[in-house]
């Protein structure tokens, strides 16, 4: 069993509060990913869980045992660092056995555990090399191996793949997913990379300026973001936001008028909102279609287009100076300055109140 519970955790450096009351439950075998903009406190939270930073207040429990003030090595956690942090003067074997040797484990047991980890990570041929004789991906595997041999209750990863090139990152991502499955372990993973978050996570924790914005499965965050921050943060490219006003509301949804004048009805609950109050409408690039000038709900001027081969991302400016990002097929042939029509289904739109909170959808297919 390994359930991690964090209660009202706060962390300050001198006068600046970095973590402003974190509450989080992590269940056995879960793969939890922390995402958030740079400097929001992801690493600090992870390091506080690991015991490398002292919590200013709050509690951390691992299976009923409070570990808030327990020494890092006694917490039953293992951490993999972004820079791998291998011991340069030790061989791969020694790197992996170091923790066990310090703990006074007997030789034959160390041998079995190291060999087992080496087998899982396919490191057997490299066991007698020094870290400097390994490639980046191999070093990363050794760093993971070092944590595996200890059989910790929870694995912590701080951006473990960010020093690898794109191809290797994809490969290691798959290996991590396989490892999570094979070890059946609880893992906490910090990343900048949305794809890593979406593909690896059972549960994504979106952090912003030291507090949690939303916790949920990747699909929940994508389809039902709790607020404008999460909606803007999850998804590549970003969701487009258009300012608007409520003109009417009933049981089936809200009538909204956008700055460019077009009106649409979005199926969200209208409670507590008055006519005339301002809202923000969000729409993802993949839910907008480019059409003929006449047919579209909107007219816009094509700005930059980015051709990725499989898709083309178009940035379109409307007459009201709103910018929309649109995903079109790879063979899209529009040019800079062309006027195009844009169309989207109101059912895919998100509405955010003036406080940034999402308005609840009436009936969601997702």
């Amino acid at each position, binding site marked *: 069993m390994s359930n991690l519970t964090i209660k009202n955790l706060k962390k300050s450096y001198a006068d600046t509060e970095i973590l402003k009351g974190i509450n989080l439950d992590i269940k056995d075998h879960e793969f939890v990913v922390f995402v958030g903009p740079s400097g929001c406190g992801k690493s600090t939270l992870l390091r506080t869980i690991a015991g490398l930073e002292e919590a200013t207040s709050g509690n951390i429990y691992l299976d009923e045992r409070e570990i808030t003030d327990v020494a890092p090595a006694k917490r039953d956690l293992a951490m993999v660092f972004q820079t791998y*942090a291998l011991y340069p003067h030790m061989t791969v074997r020694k790197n992996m056995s*170091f923790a066990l040797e*310090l703990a006074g484990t007997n030789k034959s047991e160390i041998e079995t555990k190291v060999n087992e980890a080496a087998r899982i990570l396919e490191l057997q041929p490299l066991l007698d090399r020094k870290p400097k004789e390994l490639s980046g991906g191999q070093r990363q595997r050794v760093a993971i191996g070092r944590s595996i041999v200890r059989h910790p209750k929870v694995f912590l990863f701080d951006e473990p793949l960010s020093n690898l090139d794109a191809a290797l990152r994809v490969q290691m991502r798959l290996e991590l997913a396989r490892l999570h499955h094979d070890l059946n372990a609880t893992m906490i993973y910090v990343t900048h990379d949305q794809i890593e978050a979406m593909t690896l996570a059972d549960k994504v924790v979106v952090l912003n300026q030291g507090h949690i914005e939303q916790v949920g499965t990747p699909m929940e965050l994508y389809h039902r973001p709790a607020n404008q921050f999460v909606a803007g943060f999850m998804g590549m490219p970003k969701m487009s936001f258009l300012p608007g006003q409520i003109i009417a509301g009933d049981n089936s949804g809200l009538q909204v008028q956008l700055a460019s004048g077009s009106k649409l009805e979005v199926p969200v609950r209208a409670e507590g909102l008055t006519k005339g109050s301002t809202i923000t409408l969000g729409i993802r690039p993949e839910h907008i279609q480019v059409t003929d000038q006449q047919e579209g709900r909107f007219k816009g001027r094509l700005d930059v287009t980015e051709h990725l081969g499989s898709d083309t991302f178009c940035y379109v400016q409307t007459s009201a100076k709103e910018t929309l990002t649109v995903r079109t097929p790879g063979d899209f042939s529009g040019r800079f300055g062309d006027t195009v029509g844009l169309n989207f289904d109101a059912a895919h739109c998100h509405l955010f109140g003036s406080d940034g909170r999402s308005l609840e959808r009436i009936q969601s297919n997702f």
Partner: protein
Amino acid sequence: MSLSTVETLSSRTTGSQDASIVSIAKKNARVSRYMVSPSVLVLLLWMIVPLSMTIYFSLIRYNLLYPGENEFVGFENYEFFLTDEGFFAGMGNTLLLVGFTLLITVVLGVLISVLVNKAFWGRGIVRVMLISPFFIMPTVNALVWKNLLLHPVSGVFAAVWTFFGAEPIDWFTHYPLTAIIMIVSWQWLPFAILILMTALQSLDQEQQEAARLDGAGPWALFYHITLPHLARPIAVVVMIETIFLLSIFAEIFTTTGGGPGYETTNLAYLIYSQALLQFDVGLASAGGLIAVLLANIAAFFLVRMIGKNLTEA
């Protein structure tokens, strides 16, 4: 034209091209040889003249007290120097001085630099003060130690000893070599601290954190992470200090004058006393050459032992 002639033609042209490239390269090499020759010549003169003069002096009778009697004596000077009772004392003292000073400066240097690597109030000032003895001239340093610290009547040590009710020690009479080692260590400890402190700053923070997570306490951290990281800088300290410590002179000259007896005479001081106290230039030259030979042997072993450590990893 047949195919084979074409081939020979083409091969001939490339051949001549190669030849011209080679000749240009040769010309370049010749030009650069002319260009560097003056400095090589000066260097040669710089080395050869004193060396050959020393060799020459070492092979003749050359005592300033007996001018004009400069006949060739073969290896007599060498024999004299090697069989002089001062020679083995000088060898032994040199080794003791170098060995103990290295031991003290490296051990204390590691401990102190690890201590001041932690953040504490006033660390900057402490660091500057730790380094400062290095900038004091050896003669001044020795005089300060002799007259202000170790003096049996007016020295600070004597005051401390008296305060605790002990008999003050006359260091230069009873423990002369120990006193010299103290002085030289004080002079060279800052060098070790400087090098090791700088090296510690490049120790990866995450590596230490990883070790802490692996269960390493302060001692294990020091032994398994910090010390291996310092292996190379320690090798540098040992090499450089050895080179300078083999020829310690000013500290001995200003304090004990090599005495009592031969107790603090090292090779450098022995050569000096042969040449200028006994006015025997021939003997001193022989001693100098022997010292050069010994220093080279020491350097050879040092480089074999430590140089390997430097080049690998």
